[in-house]
């Protein structure tokens, strides 16, 4: 295991295969939460936090429980239950012991259960046959890519609110066109450091 391979995984997950703009995962939160800069930052930190927790639980469960018992077909059911109960548990734990953190991230945590990015990363770690270290680096890359894209997009959307927009493009269509331009920009990262 050398450092460069991990770096390739990280850059590929964060920029080249950005989970929001290139892979189209977690678009509900992308369009739903990005209407204010502050909430997009709160959501991003909650996603980073829960995604790393979810990977560090779901990877061992698959490799040390489901594979030895030959019940891989329970992957979908077990992962969604693990993530939903994990989020509930973390929320209760934070409410009791880390009150400032709970006030910062609290309202975003229940939303994360239905955020498909968390579940998708758990599946992709298995599909790509990553070992535990690679899975954690991949998760970090994906969650940083999520943060990068959603914070940029929220900043642009604050400008769109005061821009003169043609009548039939008001609301969602202009937001989709903006996302298209951002996706075009992110495609420019392909080939960075020779990674595809």
């Amino acid at each position, binding site marked *: 295991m050398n450092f460069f391979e991990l770096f390739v995984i990280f850059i590929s997950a964060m920029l080249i295969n950005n989970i929001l703009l290139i892979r*189209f*995962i977690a678009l509900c939160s992308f*369009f739903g939460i990005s209407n204010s800069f502050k909430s997009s930052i709160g959501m991003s930190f909650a996603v980073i936090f829960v995604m790393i927790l979810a990977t560090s639980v779901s990877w061992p469960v698959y490799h040390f429980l489901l594979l030895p018992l030959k019940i891989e*077909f*329970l992957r*979908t059911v077990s992962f*969604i239950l693990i993530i939903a109960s994990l989020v509930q548990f973390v929320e209760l734990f934070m409410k009791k012991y880390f009150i400032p953190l709970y006030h910062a991230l609290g309202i975003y945590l229940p939303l994360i259960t239905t955020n498909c990015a968390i579940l998708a990363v758990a599946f992709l770690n298995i599909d790509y046959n990553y070992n535990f270290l690679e899975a954690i680096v991949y998760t970090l890359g994906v969650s940083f890519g999520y943060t990068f894209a959603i914070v940029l997009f929220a900043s642009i959307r604050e400008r769109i609110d005061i821009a003169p927009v043609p009548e039939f493009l008001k*609301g969602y269509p202009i937001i989709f066109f903006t996302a*298209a331009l951002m996706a*075009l920009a992110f495609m420019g990262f392909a080939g960075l450091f020779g990674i595809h």
Partner: protein
Amino acid sequence: MTKTIIKTFLNGILYENPILIILIGLCPTLACSSSLSDAIGMGISVTFVLVCSNVIISSIRKLVPSEIRIPVFIVIIATFVTITDYTIQAYFPALSKSLGVFIPLIVVNCIILGRAEAFAYKNNVILSFVDGIGMGLGFTIAICGLAFIRELLGNGTLFGSKPFFSNPILMFILPPGAFIGIGILISIWQYIKKTSTPKIKPCNGCSLSSICYHENMEKK
């Protein structure tokens, strides 16, 4: 009774179309619409899971206490998603490869959990079945419409046939094309909606209307 059934059926396709009007379930719509065959595969999978979960949930709705209904819904949906996933892997390996992680991700698709919560938990089995078919068809129509635009403009083909013209606009099968395609579809729908119901606003035609105080007050 027949009237209610027809109304429920059309509701999913026209009045509450999940993609074009409510804008939920966008991830599979954008990701699996680069070719028409992928789009039809995704549409049928979602329709199957939606109809089965609606029927099961509405038939056990009186047995499930409301406090634990969401976990119960999720387990039922996940079961049908697993069935779909393994069926596609066994009989359509090429489709399974191109749809990839989006088949297991049907489990967190907002359309399915949303219909379970908003419709199947409150209505009888027949109506829930019809609602599932209507919503599934609405989803399939929207995703196929988007795939039609993207495959024709981006690749010049339909269902992977011989190209109809040379020099297609490559961008439409790449990720930005998906956003542009859905933006065009929604703006066409907004145009139809606004022109069919004329409304006269006091500020209409004013060049400052988009930033004006009155307009912003109306939105709030």
